[in-house]
């Protein structure tokens, strides 16, 4: 019935969870400072972006992907504990349940983003208010496929494998998306553009001329969102049938 109070408690739980601080907030922040700080004003050849801008968005992509997919770890854990069944014999609707999970993931993602924006500003990233907003907007949209992926993973995988799966998935997607170093040509360049993480990372180009995604970006993100949302719905139904 009252999904709002439920969402509030979910947020409270999330922000009390130490692992969340470590993986979603701590890691990206530490990596950012380690990589970007020594040469923050230097431009990375072939990109037109400074180290600070480039890695701010790269690590934001990493951290926010982690936030979204960690929903899966939480769902897997709650399923294993039998908590999901307990919730299913309450009036909380499935919709309200997933809305709370996704909103919580976005709250985590926004926190991670904010800390990286602040760090970026301290290292000389300077954008107009409009461009900060545009960048944030694109990242939020670019995370939609990952919100669905989180739910898919949560209902497919058990708690033992969810950790390694998440870590592996995010690392590979970040790498192929061009988060760690610019992929400007060749097979990886052609292939990467089919991945949702590529477009997440491309949000950095807002810093260049205010634009980052062409039609291809929007279509790729929309397609992945549709595919993964269908997958999540399937996994959820399959999971309940097994009770």
């Amino acid at each position, binding site marked *: 019935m009252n999904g709002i109070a439920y969402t509030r408690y979910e947020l409270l*739980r999330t922000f009390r969870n130490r692992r969340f601080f470590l993986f979603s907030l701590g890691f990206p922040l530490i990596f950012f400072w380690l990589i970007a700080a020594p040469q923050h004003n230097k431009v990375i050849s072939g990109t037109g972006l400074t180290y600070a801008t480039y890695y701010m968005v790269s690590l934001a992509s990493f951290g926010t992907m982690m936030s979204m997919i960690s929903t899966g770890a939480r769902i897997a854990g709650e399923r294993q*504990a039998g908590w999901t069944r307990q919730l299913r014999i309450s009036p909380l609707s499935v919709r309200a349940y997933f809305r709370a999970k996704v909103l919580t993931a976005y709250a985590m993602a926004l926190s991670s983003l904010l800390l990286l924006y602040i760090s970026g500003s301290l290292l000389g990233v300077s954008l107009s208010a409009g461009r900060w907003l545009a960048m944030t907007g694109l990242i939020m949209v670019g995370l939609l496929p990952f919100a669905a992926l989180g739910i898919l993973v949560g209902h497919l995988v058990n708690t033992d494998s969810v950790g390694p799966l998440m870590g592996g998935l995010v690392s590979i997607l970040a790498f192929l998306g061009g988060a760690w170093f610019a992929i400007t040509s060749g097979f990886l360049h052609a292939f990467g553009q089919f991945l949702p993480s590529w477009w997440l990372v491309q949000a950095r180009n807002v810093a260049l001329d205010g634009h980052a995604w062409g039609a291809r970006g929007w279509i790729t993100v929309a397609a992945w969102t549709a595919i993964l949302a269908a997958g999540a719905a399937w996994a959820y139904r399959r999971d309940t049938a097994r009770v």
Partner: protein
Amino acid sequence: MTTQAIAQLDGATIEPSGGVCLHGLVKSYRGPEGPIRAVRGIEVSIAAGETVALLGPNGAGKSTTIDMLLGLSKPDGGTVSVFGRPPREAVDAGLVGAMLQTGGLIRDLSVRELVGMMASLYPDPMDVEEALEVTGLNATGGQRTHKLSGGQTQRVRFALAIVCNPDLLVLDEPTVALDVEGRREFWSIMREFAARGKTVLFATHYLEEADSNADRAILMAHGRIVADGPTTEIKARVGRRTLRATLPDVNQSSLAGLPGVAAAERHGAVVILSCIDSDQSIRALLEQYPAAKDIEITGGSLEDAFLELTGEPDADGPDADKPQPGTR
């Protein structure tokens, strides 16, 4: 008795909003060697305000029945009605609280917060402090849920089940992980809550639990109901104990005549007494035959008692789904 039972089972004599009504419930699971017929056509009706034990050995189908009663799984056949509604509607209206057989708590909240979170989902919940009070958790309210003992965890789960202020409370083997003291505490809390006029259905495989906490017991074995009646009657049917003693030179028939003894056998120097009331029997035995030694009393297992009542575990005769004559 039997005709009355049948009339009841049709649903004809039951008020539609009266309580819980399970009609012709059937449920199978897919197993590696064909279907596992967990519930094979059961008829149960529970009036509002009754406290009923669903008693049966492991694998009898108790949890499967409870899952269907709560709307967690869909029956292959038959209908469930809870206060005249389908289970999902009864749950949404906040009429049902349940403690499932398996289930832990989620981390990173205090006991008070977790109970508050559950309360927030319901239309007309109990006050959170009252739920903590009833379950004896006042002092534990501030503690994080992952730092609780087994007994405390079960009490929190009980608090989660009652915080919606349900009319029907369903408990699936709630004390299985608890020690003797924990069990005693748990049941006394349960009885106090039931005394508020609640309808309670709890599953157990301990005859004693059914006997001391319910007015009525429904015996289940191999997916069927094999007896249904007042706990005292049920206890007399399945609660036999076996008393063994080394006692040579005593006539078998005089042993069979001891109070509380239903039958006596002799194997050499050893006598085996089948007792309806073993307390009475042992007192009488020692009084009359102080020479008796190596005395041993064992409870006949429920599984054995049920097998006796059901006959072949997988028999599927035409009357197999009907309760035994003489039960209600």
